[in-house]
């Protein structure tokens, strides 16, 4: 074959692979980018303001960790054609099933409230009243699902994922000192030692990168999209791109707040946006738009994770490919969660700080359970078959991740429940 023909066929092969990938891509990118939700943006903003560029290396580590956990859901969904909730009921029995779904719905609902807190605060910066924000968000999210097409929902959600990249130009606009970022951010270090405060931020960053709803969401999404075993390879690439995007966005958020707000106490992302607007109006506005988009993405995915899980277990029609009339239970739960969470944010004097703290503690109780179930399911040959079950290397990597997360989660839960337990002396 001559050179032009070889180039032509090579290009055609690549183009075909790309088309196939684009058909499969979606769940991995969406779940990973939505992981940078309103709570996540607050965590990264506060991390940058508190520790400067020094914890960027930790986020670089969290990217592969998130990939290894989420990749398992792709295989599990594609092989079993079942969502995570149904898989837990079937494999571990009703006790663990009810525990998981109860914890999931509670955590999702509380997290959904925090998404609305973020969205109302973000649009509040532009003078939009909270009531209008809540109504607009519910209307938008309703419009996204009423088409009765997973494809339409997914493409619209991917547009919001693209908007999450707004933090990248924001970071360039603040003109950070690149040599300082490279010298302080890439090499592992704990500025000021491994204090209780440092531990809190480390755990907050883990908690925003790996969350129980992500496991449930991606597996259900893979099933709803109809991915097969042959699509696992593309599903892995999809998840890898998503993991890269989520870490990239997180790093750029840290760069913005570390450059603009280092040393200032930042309690939430909206406060960070307002503080930045005093120095740089455009960057502050970009941060606020990003916060709204992050809350919206989180709300889209979290409300669906619960609806899918309930639909699977209760045997309701539970697909975005069904119209509202064809899957009433699925959509009623979806809108009930949205309206309920939105309404709570509008209650004057609602204990929003307490809710945020509760989200962290309850999510911690589900995370180890969700990870253990995932690991056990991926090792069961009767579920996965010999070809798709975890390899020895995957087991070693994931077991290390699970053990480290369980130990840290337990310490985190204890520190949240008993703040004085670790705070004495300042260091762990």
């Amino acid at each position, binding site marked *: 074959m001559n050179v032009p023909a070889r180039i032509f066929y090579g290009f055609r092969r690549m183009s075909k692979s790309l088309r196939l990938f684009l058909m499969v891509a979606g769940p991995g990118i969406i779940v990973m980018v939505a992981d940078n939700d309103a709570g996540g943006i607050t965590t990264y903003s506060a991390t940058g303001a508190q520790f400067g560029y020094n914890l960027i290396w930790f986020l670089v580590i969290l990217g592969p960790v998130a990939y290894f956990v989420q990749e398992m859901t792709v295989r599990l969904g594609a092989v079993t054609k079942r969502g995570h909730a149904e898989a837990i*009921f*079937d*494999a*571990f*029995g*009703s006790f*663990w*099933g*009810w*525990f998981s779904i109860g914890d999931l719905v509670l955590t999702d609902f509380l997290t959904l409230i925090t998404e609305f807190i973020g969205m109302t605060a973000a649009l509040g910066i532009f003078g939009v009243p909270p009531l209008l924000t809540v109504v607009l968000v519910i209307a938008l999210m309703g419009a996204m699902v009423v088409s009765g097409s997973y494809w339409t929902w997914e493409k619209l959600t991917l547009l919001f994922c693209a908007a999450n990249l707004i933090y990248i130009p924001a970071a360039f606009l603040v003109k950070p000192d690149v040599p300082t970022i490279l010298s302080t951010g890439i090499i592992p270090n704990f500025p000021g030692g491994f204090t209780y405060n440092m531990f809190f931020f480390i755990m907050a960053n883990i908690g925003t990168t790996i969350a129980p709803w992500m496991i449930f969401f991606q597996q259900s999404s893979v099933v709803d999209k109809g991915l097969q075993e042959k699509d696992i390879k593309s599903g892995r690439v999809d998840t890898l791109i998503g993991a890269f995007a989520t870490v990239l966005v997180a790093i750029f958020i840290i760069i913005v707040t570390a450059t603009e707000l280092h040393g200032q106490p930042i309690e939430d992302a909206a406060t960070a946006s307002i503080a930045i607007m005093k120095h740089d109006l455009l960057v502050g506005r970009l941060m606020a738009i990003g916060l709204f988009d992050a809350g919206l993405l989180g709300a889209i995915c979290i409300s669906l994770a619960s609806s899918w899980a309930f639909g699977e*277990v*209760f045997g309701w029609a539970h697909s975005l490919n069904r119209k509202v009339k064809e899957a009433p239970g699925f959509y009623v739960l979806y809108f009930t969660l949205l309206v309920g969470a939105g309404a709570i944010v509008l209650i004057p004097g609602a204990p929003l700080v307490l809710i945020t703290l509760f989200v962290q*503690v309850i999510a*911690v*109780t589900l995370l*180890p*359970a969700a990870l*253990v179930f995932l*690991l*056990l*399911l991926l*090792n*069961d*040959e*009767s*579920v996965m078959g010999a070809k798709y079950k975890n390899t020895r290397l995957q087991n070693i990597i994931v077991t290390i991740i699970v053990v480290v997360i*369980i130990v840290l989660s*337990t310490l985190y*839960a*204890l520190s949240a*429940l*008993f703040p004085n337990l670790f705070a004495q002396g300042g260091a762990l």
Partner: protein
Amino acid sequence: MTETTRKAGFLAKVGEITRKYKTPRIKATPAVKVALLALRVYLFVLVGLLAYKFVTLL
């Protein structure tokens, strides 16, 4: 459909699901048994601590 009928229907469905998934299907290897036992202990301790915290806060 009245509220009572709806509640009864929901509870009946919950009971049906509980019966359907009564027996775990996963192969009970030693690793699975140990993992589930450890998980029960972990959750028992954590829920106990949550309850303790709640009671002491009251």
